[in-house]
């Protein structure tokens, strides 16, 4: 038995996984999505914001991890626009600005919003955690121009802000460094609430900051984006992927179970 299982070419596993995940994407099953306490508290912070409040969204995810964390940022940006909250978009990862642009593009022309008044893309600053510290201390100095080379001191939205104390909420969407640790460290002592969205794998290590109250809400991965979409009543691409995710898990769990079965059978055989 173990020899047989061990002799299976890994490429068969790849094909099975591919087909199983593909199936519900073409034919959705419609499994229910419940909302976790983490997403609920994230939503509560956003929901309390008033029209005209200013928030920061820092897009610090790489294009590789984007599919896992990006849908969160999209859902939240849509929600903020619907609530007439103003958004300062920024990035401390070189690949960030074009991805931020992809989020705000639908609002660049139409939808009743104006670039520079309702939202802005400040672009990227090198220097990771140090750059974040510089931004918190003086935003316009760390970003003299925005992504389109417009001087930030001429942008209407930037007129009423100097440092991080001038915004209500700072959100960081991350796949690694810079991420929650850097933002929590560098915002210690500033007034805004911190909200974090990360790739699923970073959820567990971010938990201590949530439990200690250093961050007010935590989204991890596509599942949280799906929950947020459902909670905000704006179903989008994340919710559509949930069935596929369920079946994918089944394949992985079965692979583990089979491997272990073979292992224990083999061990039993060896003991005889």
């Amino acid at each position, binding site marked *: 038995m173990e020899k047989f299982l061990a002799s299976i070419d890994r490429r068969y596993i790849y094909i099975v996984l591919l087909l199983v995940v593909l199936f519900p994407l073409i034919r959705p099953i419609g499994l229910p999505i419940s909302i976790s306490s983490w997403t609920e508290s994230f939503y509560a912070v956003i929901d309390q914001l008033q029209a005209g409040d200013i928030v920061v969204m820092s897009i610090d995810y790489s294009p590789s991890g984007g599919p896992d964390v990006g849908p969160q940022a999209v859902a939240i940006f849509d929600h903020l626009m619907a609530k007439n909250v103003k958004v300062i978009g920024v990035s401390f990862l070189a690949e960030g600005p074009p991805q931020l642009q992809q989020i705000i593009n639908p609002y660049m022309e139409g939808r009743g919003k104006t670039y520079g008044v309702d939202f802005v893309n400040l*672009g990227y600053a090198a220097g990771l*955690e140090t750059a974040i510290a510089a931004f918190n201390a003086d935003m316009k100095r*760390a970003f003299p121009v925005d992504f389109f080379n417009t001087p930030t001191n001429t942008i209407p939205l930037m007129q009423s802000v100097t440092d991080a104390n001038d915004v209500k909420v700072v959100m960081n969407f991350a796949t690694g460094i810079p991420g929650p640790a850097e933002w929590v460290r560098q915002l210690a002592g500033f007034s805004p609430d911190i909200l974090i969205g990360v790739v699923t794998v970073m959820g567990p290590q971010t938990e201590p900051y949530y439990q200690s109250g250093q961050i007010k809400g935590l989204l991890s991965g596509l599942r949280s984006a799906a929950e947020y979409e459902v909670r905000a009543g704006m179903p989008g691409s994340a919710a559509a992927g949930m069935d596929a995710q369920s079946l*994918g898990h089944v394949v992985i769990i079965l692979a583990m179970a089979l491997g272990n079965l073979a292992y224990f059978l083999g061990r039993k055989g060896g003991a005889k």
Partner: protein
Amino acid sequence: MNLSVGITLAAIMTIACYSYLWRENTLYRIAEHLFVGLGAGYSIAMGWNNVKTNAINPLLNDGQYILIVPLLLGALLFTRFLPGSNKWLARIPMAFLVGTGIALSARAAVLAEFVQQIRATIIPLNSVNNILIVVGTIGVLAYFFFSSKFTEGIPGLKYGALVGRYVMMAAFGAAFGNGVMGRISLLISRLQFIFGSWLGLM
């Protein structure tokens, strides 16, 4: 099916990467090198942007002459490519980067990750969960005692370390489970792209 140049290129790139699953091949190798080149060029462009907007423009337009200092430091980084004995000059900007970087993370780590985390663990032992959190945290700390000076001197540390190991394994399990979930999202997004945006089957 969407045959626009951009989408088709993106689809080919995806397939080139996936071809590695079959075996290493020429298409994968080309994608690999293309990727490295694009990434490097991207960083240069973004870096230049920063230098221009944060240093050169304020220097020339607003007369902030002090910015000559960081510009000079930045230029010195490249002395390591010089032949001869001037390579050491690259250490000066490195020293500046290391000094600021490590000081900024240390000063904040002691507050956000040492004091505030200990403070958050000072909870009353009035529930099973609270007891587990306190004992688990101490156990993990005990696991990472390295010098025998302390491991042998303090009774109970050995058992604490054992508890710590189990707690960490449970935490690793959580990270693994979450990790699997996240990775499936990535596959979903690629499949949505290939079969939806490109082939139009969804």
